[in-house]
């Protein structure tokens, strides 16, 4: 039995787990809920592995491998089916989603052990896995959109998991609504693509699009508009400017949720869509430029906010937004494989960062404010070491995974040519480099504040203890992956092949900058510069937080204005509230509710009823109980009938004939 024929099993297993836990889990002990949830995800992971194994044996003509299961929509010429497909890109996403997802499930069994609603958590988590797998395996935009919306739903459910807390419920709503704004653009993009190509299935659509001429730079052709609309959806889902505001608030959810959904998988769906639609994007250089600029700007913007945040999860949230910006930067300059590579390594180290942060929070008994931590390194060694590994990875130190992926992105940005010049590429490179410096700085700031220095909490009140192995196991696993994950491209630096890009080449089949011969020395130089930036960031953090601990507060006081702006996230939420939310609420209340609903619709319906009452009131006067008035009504009736009967003879034409 070839699993390639039964691809639906991969998403169906978590769905089954979700249903079982959701329907029956309320009365079950934690152990059984665990088994169902972790087991279904684990089986899905195994199925994915098997699918990959069989995939590698397929002949090249069968790629992408598409399985059509049933027809979902038929309307005129439009057909959308429940079609799943596998190609190289799918393989990468599949392994990341199922693998990291499984590790996080295991972690959650330890983290959520004492929480209420245990079964509900795992039901939602499995539901999320189902939708994410649908998204990744989909063979047409419509099914992808189903998965897209589904992960948004799961995100809402999981962010608002502690729904009795108002801030959590509000955060869930905010995430869903902001996502929805992006989805509007995504849908318009889908409609436009359908209108242009008559189909939304990937294989035929891309085949039709490939030979068409590309849009001219600066010209808003069909490709450009469609790609910009799809990118708008990606901005919502992957938290880019201006739709990133939901991600920091999403930290209200439990930490495993932040790790899985808002670091490793859901937020990468936008990058996946852009990569999947790369044929469309390469036909729209304007759109790609926009993507690159937005990605770069977001990366820098979020990094600046992350510099001063005090909540450990907030720092990581802004870091996620920033790293997602890097992925879009990569896709924007044409290095799609680099973007996906960074997606993969980011999944490893960001999930690890979040899970380790969860471990810290668990150790501190629920404390999330870094200003009340300190000196934990000696007490929770495993957490400290794994988190340090992840920080080295994200800062971009070799030989950890982040170095390779970030370096490739910066290299491709450096060589980006658009508008007939190198200027754009150089600016993007410079900003990206600066962001790398900032990233290194704030991540090491986090490490130093949390694990080093003197404890800033009451040691008698808080008993810091290491987490159980159900939580530490995945941490170690992810640390390992963060270390060796980048080595797939290592040989390229020494004149060999980079295996990752070769793997993805059949999908992207565009010569990428790294394949150039003679570019080796430039690569080495840029790599060195990147490491220098990272080291600088580390040094500044060391100086400010370890050497002279008071210096950071001094700096904050002297640059009070800037500091407050950053601390308040550039007041973006407040601006949105004033500019968008308030007017919308006003319109909803006064126009839509009062005028349209109450006066127009209710008024019409009530008016009809009142009219009927009024007519009845008038007609009732004929029934007066008075015989003589009845007599009059009889005469009136007779008059009417006679008039009707004799009407033809009263018409002028008859008279004319008579005369």
């Amino acid at each position, binding site marked *: 039995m070839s699993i390639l024929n039964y691809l639906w099993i991969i998403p169906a297993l978590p769905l089954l787990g979700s249903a079982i836990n959701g329907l029956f889990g309320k009365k079950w002990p934690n152990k059984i809920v665990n088994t169902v949830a972790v087991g279904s995800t684990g089986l899905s992971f195994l199925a994915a592995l098997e699918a990959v194994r069989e995939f590698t044996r397929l002949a090249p003509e069968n790629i992408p491998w598409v399985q059509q299961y049933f027809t979902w929509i038929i309307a005129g010429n439009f057909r959308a089916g429940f079609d799943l497909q596998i190609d190289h890109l799918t393989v990468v996403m599949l392994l990341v989603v199922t693998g990291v997802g499984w590790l996080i499930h295991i972690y959650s069994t330890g983290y959520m052990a004492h929480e209420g609603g245990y079964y509900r958590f795992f039901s939602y988590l499995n539901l999320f896995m189902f939708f994410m797998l649908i998204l990744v395996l989909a063979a047409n935009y419509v099914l992808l959109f189903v998965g897209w919306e589904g992960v948004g739903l799961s995100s809402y459910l999981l962010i608002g998991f502690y729904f009795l807390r108002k801030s959590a419920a509000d955060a869930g709503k905010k995430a869903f609504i902001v996502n929805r704004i992006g989805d509007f653009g995504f849908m318009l993009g889908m409609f436009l693509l359908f209108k242009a190509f008559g189909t939304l299935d990937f294989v035929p659509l891309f085949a039709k699009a490939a030979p068409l001429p590309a849009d001219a730079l600066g010209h808003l052709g069909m490709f450009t508009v469609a790609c910009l609309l799809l990118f708008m959806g990606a901005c919502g889902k992957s938290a880019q400017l201006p739709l990133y505001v939901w991600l920091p608030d999403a930290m209200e959810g439990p930490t495993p949720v932040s790790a899985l959904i808002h670091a490793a998988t859901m937020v990468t769906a936008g990058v996946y869509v852009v990569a999947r639609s790369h044929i469309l994007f390469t036909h729209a250089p304007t759109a790609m430029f926009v993507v690159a600029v937005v990605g770069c700007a977001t990366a820098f913007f979020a990094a600046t906010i992350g510099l001063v945040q005090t909540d450990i999860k907030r720092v990581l949230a802004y870091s996620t937004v920033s790293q997602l910006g890097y992925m879009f930067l990569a896709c924007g300059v044409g290095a799609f494989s680099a973007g996906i590579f960074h997606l993969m390594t980011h999944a490893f180290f960001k999930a690890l960062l979040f899970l380790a942060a969860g471990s810290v929070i668990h150790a501190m008994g629920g404390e999330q404010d870094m200003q009340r931590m300190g000196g934990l390194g000696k007490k929770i060694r495993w957490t400290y070491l794994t988190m340090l590994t992840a920080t080295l990875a994200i800062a971009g130190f070799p030989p950890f995974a982040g170095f390779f992926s970030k370096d490739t992105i910066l290299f491709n940005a450096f060589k980006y040519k658009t508008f007939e010049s190198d200027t754009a590429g150089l600016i993007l490179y410079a900003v990206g480099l600066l962001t790398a410096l900032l990233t290194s700085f704030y991540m090491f700031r986090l490490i130093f504040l949390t694990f080093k220095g003197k404890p800033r909490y009451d040691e008698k009140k808080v008993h810091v203890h290491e987490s159980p192995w159900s939580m530490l196991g995945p941490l170690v696993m992810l640390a390992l992956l963060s270390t060796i994950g980048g080595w797939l491209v290592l040989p390229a630096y020494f004149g060999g092949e980079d295996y990752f890009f070769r793997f993805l080449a059949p999908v992207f089949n565009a010569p990428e900058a790294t394949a150039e011969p003679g570019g080796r020395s430039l690569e080495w130089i840029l790599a060195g510069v990147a490491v220098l930036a990272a080291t600088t960031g580390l040094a500044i953090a060391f100086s400010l937080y370890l050497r002279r601990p008071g210096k950071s507060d001094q700096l904050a006081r002297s640059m009070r204005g800037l500091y407050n702006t950053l601390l308040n996230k550039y007041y973006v939420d407040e601006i949105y509230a004033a500019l968008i939310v308030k007017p919308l609420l006003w319109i909803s209340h006064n126009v839509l509710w009062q005028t349209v609903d109450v006066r127009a619709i209710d008024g019409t319906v009530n008016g009809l009823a009142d009219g009927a009452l009024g007519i009845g009131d008038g007609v009732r006067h004929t029934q*007066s109980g*008075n*015989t*003589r*008035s009845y*007599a*009059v009504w009889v*005469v*009136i009736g*007779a*008059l009417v009938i*006679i*008039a009707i009967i*004799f009407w033809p*003879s*009263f018409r002028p034409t*008859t*008279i004319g004939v*008579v005369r």
Partner: protein
Amino acid sequence: MNAPLIIFFVLAAMCVIGAISLILQRHPIHSALSLIVVMVALAGLYLLMGAEFVAAVQIIVYGGAIMVLFVFVIMLLNAGLEERTNFSKLAGFAGVPLAVALTGLLAAAVARSQDTVQAATQTGATAPTKALANLLFQDFVYPFELTSFLILVAILGAIVLAAPRGES
């Protein structure tokens, strides 16, 4: 101006004066007597048109039976002068205009149809009673039998209605 026309106008005047008198009289017995005048005048008009049997039946049945019945009932009920109550405003306001409208409508219909109604084809011949009887008992025998049944029912109804209370 020929004789039939003069006779017509005389009889018509009698009809109309009788009808107006029926409206204007205050005691029902006077109204009944006015109605008798109208009926006799109408019988005269029928004769003028040559419908002798109908004229006879009009006098005998209408004048001799129905109006006598009315007079008897007026006597039985001790009808007095009419009261002056007026509870129906509608009748007060709308009555005259309505009647005028009705009459006007009918008259206008008649006037407009002068062309279709053949005038002055009166042959002067009298309608033979024999022909009428033939028509009645051959073509219209079914309605004839039904009307006899109707009369029977009316008699029964009248008796039941007017029987004194308290008797089983």
